[in-house]
């Protein structure tokens, strides 16, 4: 492709997939502007409908690019759009590029679909919106959508930082939305402080890379690093590149909630309005994982960057630590939203372990896992939201047996718990199976155990809340008010008073989301597409060639993710293990019993922002230490 003439007029008679990419970001922003301007004079119903229409239009745009633009004959076809028509000349340019490969556009599509689900879920949600601000909540959600889509599509490091910040700012506001509650304000503040610190680190890293290369695009920085591999001895990074990698990663790992950068997540997720939790846990955290992988594979994977072995060691260590701590903490929660929050931490760890395989198989499996996890986790949060609004509580003990009157919600939770544990044929099961197979060895065991523990924790709660199994908390002579535990009692419902009847939309949304997670596991066409997407994602040369308009190198396609007998068996094993754990917990442990040996880990999650900041610094030092052997 030749660089387009700067003034080729009226080229946009048809909307090409590439030209559509910026509209995926602009459409929700325009919707937000419309809702702010007109929302003051609109009834609530109209404002919410308008918000849903804009979100759905964005989803259609993203899906159209996914179906048209990235399915060309060329393996790993990418829609590449230089904003403002500022194409590079001779590999050097001044513009910003959006790169719609399958993973990026796919994430934008999933995000948009989840936003539609969330807006539908919140139709009957919240007591009356703030005075004359009916459009505010949908407007904030639309800005959130724009930030996440922009982050998924951009091919420019500084632009990624801008969207990282946009996601952050809107997420803090949404987390603290119920300002009447002190806990919500506290959680939002922690979230804001910790994420902003991560953002500053990322910006510093961007500055270092710019100082070295004079470039800001992923592909351009990568190309410069590869062209001048640190002066003296080729191969690994020097201290500047290593430091830049650590700094850029810090912000992304905070977003991804990798241990020890994860402390903000349970505090924010426990207090954020349930529809917001669906977005935070469903896609935003996963975008941090995506950003980590994207930055590594486009910038640092080449000569002069971080060698594969060192990146593997880093991701595997962080992933394992995150998975274990997440699972351990998840099992010990009785606050149900906090339980789900820690299960997100655990699964983030598994995603990082999946990426640490460093092959298309591992990445493809992780992509499927993320996709299905978004549906399952959002469905579970939606179900918890119903409990909260019906009973004013998300406390597993207080709700003992009270869920019997909501059998359908119980079924959703049970199915969600099994899907979380990786039961075939859910997409989570397939993603887990493929990643397990790619990782092999003890890591496969880690996948089985961690997914079983998180799924088992949900099933345990289902058994107690919806079936009334096990000892009643009062009968056990429970000592009230432990100091190091968040109970989830006495929560304010997020609707106007406790619900007497559950609105259809609030029930339909989790059911549809679970069906989506099931579809991820059983639609073969999707699996092939994810396989090709993963090939393209790891193909640094192909990415650079597509962005800088140089001839692409031929790439060898790897087979897409598919079910195998071993995968199905391990999935069934995890699900069975989850059931056994839940059964054991309900039968043999009273509600008051807490595992004493895990208390130190529990106490680290103190809610003290100072602790969290100290751990971020320690985490940065840890990441650097893990990468140190790579330095020349």
């Amino acid at each position, binding site marked *: 492709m030749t660089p387009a003439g700067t003034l080729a007029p009226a080229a*946009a008679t048809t909307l090409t997939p590439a030209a559509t990419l910026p509209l995926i970001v602009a459409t929700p922003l325009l919707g937000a502007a419309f809702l702010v301007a007109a929302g003051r004079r609109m009834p609530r119903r109209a404002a919410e409908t308008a918000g849903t229409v804009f979100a759905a239009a964005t989803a259609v745009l993203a899906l159209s690019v996914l179906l048209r633009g990235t399915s060309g004959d060329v393996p790993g076809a990418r829609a590449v759009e230089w904003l403002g028509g500022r194409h590079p000349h001779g590999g050097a340019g*001044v513009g910003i590029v959006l790169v719609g490969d399958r993973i990026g556009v796919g994430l934008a599509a999933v995000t948009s679909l989840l936003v539609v689900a969330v807006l539908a879920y919140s139709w009957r949600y919240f007591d009356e919106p703030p005075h004359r601000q009916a459009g505010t909540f949908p407007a904030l959600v639309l800005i959130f959508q724009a930030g996440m889509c922009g982050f998924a599509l951009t091919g420019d490091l500084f632009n990624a930082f801008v969207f990282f910040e946009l996601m952050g700012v809107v997420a803090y506001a949404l987390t603290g939305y119920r300002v009447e509650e002190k806990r919500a304000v506290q959680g939002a503040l922690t979230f804001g402080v910790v994420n902003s610190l991560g953002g500053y680190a990322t910006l510093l890293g961007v500055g270092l890379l710019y100082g070295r290369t004079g470039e800001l695009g992923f592909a351009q920085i990568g190309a410069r690093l590869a062209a001048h591999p640190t002066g003296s001895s080729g191969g690994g990074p020097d201290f500047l590149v290593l430091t830049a990698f650590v700094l850029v990663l810090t912000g992304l790992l905070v977003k991804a909630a990798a241990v020890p950068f994860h402390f903000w997540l349970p505090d924010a997720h426990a207090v954020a309005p349930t529809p917001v939790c669906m977005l935070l846990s469903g896609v935003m955290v996963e975008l941090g994982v995506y950003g980590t992988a994207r930055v590594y594979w486009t910038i640092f994977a080449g000569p002069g960057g971080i060698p594969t072995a060192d990146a593997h060691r880093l991701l595997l260590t962080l992933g394992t630590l995150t998975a274990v701590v997440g699972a351990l903490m998840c099992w010990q929660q009785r606050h149900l939203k906090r339980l789900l929050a820690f299960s997100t931490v655990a699964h983030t760890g598994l995603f990082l372990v999946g990426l640490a395989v460093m092959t298309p198989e591992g990445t493809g499996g992780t992509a499927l896992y993320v996709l299905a996890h978004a549906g399952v986790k959002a469905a579970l949060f939606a179900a918890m939201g119903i409990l909260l609004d019906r009973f004013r509580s998300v406390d597993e003990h207080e709700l003992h047996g009270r869920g019997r009157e909501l059998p359908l919600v119980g079924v959703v939770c049970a199915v969600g718990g099994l899907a979380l544990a990786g039961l075939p044929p859910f997409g989570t099961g397939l993603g887990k199976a493929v990643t397990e197979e790619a990782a092999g060895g003890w890591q496969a065991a880690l996948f089985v155990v961690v997914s079983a523990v998180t799924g088992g924790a949900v099933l345990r709660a289902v058994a107690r809340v919806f079936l009334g199994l096990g000892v009643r908390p009062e009968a056990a002579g429970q000592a009230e008010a432990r100091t190091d535990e968040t109970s989830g009692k006495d929560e304010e419902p997020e609707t106007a008073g406790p619900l007497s009847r559950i609105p259809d939309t609030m029930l339909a949304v989790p059911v549809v989301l679970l069906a989506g997670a099931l579809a991820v596991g059983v639609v073969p066409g999707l699996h092939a597409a994810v396989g090709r997407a993963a090939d393209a994602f790891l193909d640094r040369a192909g990415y650079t060639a597509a962005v800088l308009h140089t001839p692409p190198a031929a790439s060898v396609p790897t087979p897409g993710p598919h079910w195998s007998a071993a995968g199905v068996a391990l999935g069934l094993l995890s699900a069975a293990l989850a059931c056994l754990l839940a059964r054991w917990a309900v039968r043999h442990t009273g509600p008051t019993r807490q595992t004493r040996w895990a208390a130190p880990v529990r106490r680290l999650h103190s809610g003290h922002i100072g602790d969290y900041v100290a751990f971020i610094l320690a985490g940065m030092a840890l990441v650097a230490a893990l990468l140190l052997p790579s330095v020349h």
Partner: protein
Amino acid sequence: MSRRIRTWVLLLGGLGVAVLLFAASLDLPEFGGDRHPYGARAVEAALARHTANVVAAVNFDQRAFDTLGEESILFCAALGTVVLLRQTRDEHRVRPEPARVDPPVRRYALVALPVTLLIGLYVVAHGQLSPGGGFQGGVVVATALHLLYIAVDYRALERIRPVGLYATADAAGEAAYLLLGAAGLVAGTAYLANFLPYGTFGTLASGGVVPLLNASVGVEVASGVVVLLASFLDQAVEIEDATEHTASGPARHPTLPPPSEEKPT
């Protein structure tokens, strides 16, 4: 964690990061070197489109999409602040009392107000020519309006500051930027592409679409900052807890003389 452990974790982590940053700084290019790959290209690209202020060319032309994101961050921050600082059910509004202002302060602020406003508008309008632009000028304009609070009192400020109107203008500025970008797609080559003649170098109408994008950011920033400050000021001046109200009474300025002394204009 105890204070002691926290301090140790912080110190050790901070030490590690400090060592890392120090080592990295040794590998940085020399200060004041003459190799500026992006700078050289950016200046060339700005002059090619008759934009005298290269920073404006970077902000509103070469990397206009970054500016869209940044503008949206401010838009979202204003919106989020309105939500977070809203009047909740257990709070109520107290009409602010007129306040007495020392005559010299009052005279100074009333003189400074129109001058500041003019400078703000100038800085916005000349963004494509000289240092400044929509972001900087917008903040100056918003500051100018708030001089009325210093010159007179909060009621006077409220009279020229209907928050609803400014929130709408905020949204209009954001929408104008988005729609100008779309116009680039329809009339030009790509989203946010230039579709206007470049004009004569050094005049107000130079730089193609840059002045328009700059102006929409100016509108957005000026109104966004007004909305942002309004939320904070309302919270500080007008909104009170029910308990606080019954305990201390409605008077916010107990040391000030009664309202009749000063008539707000």
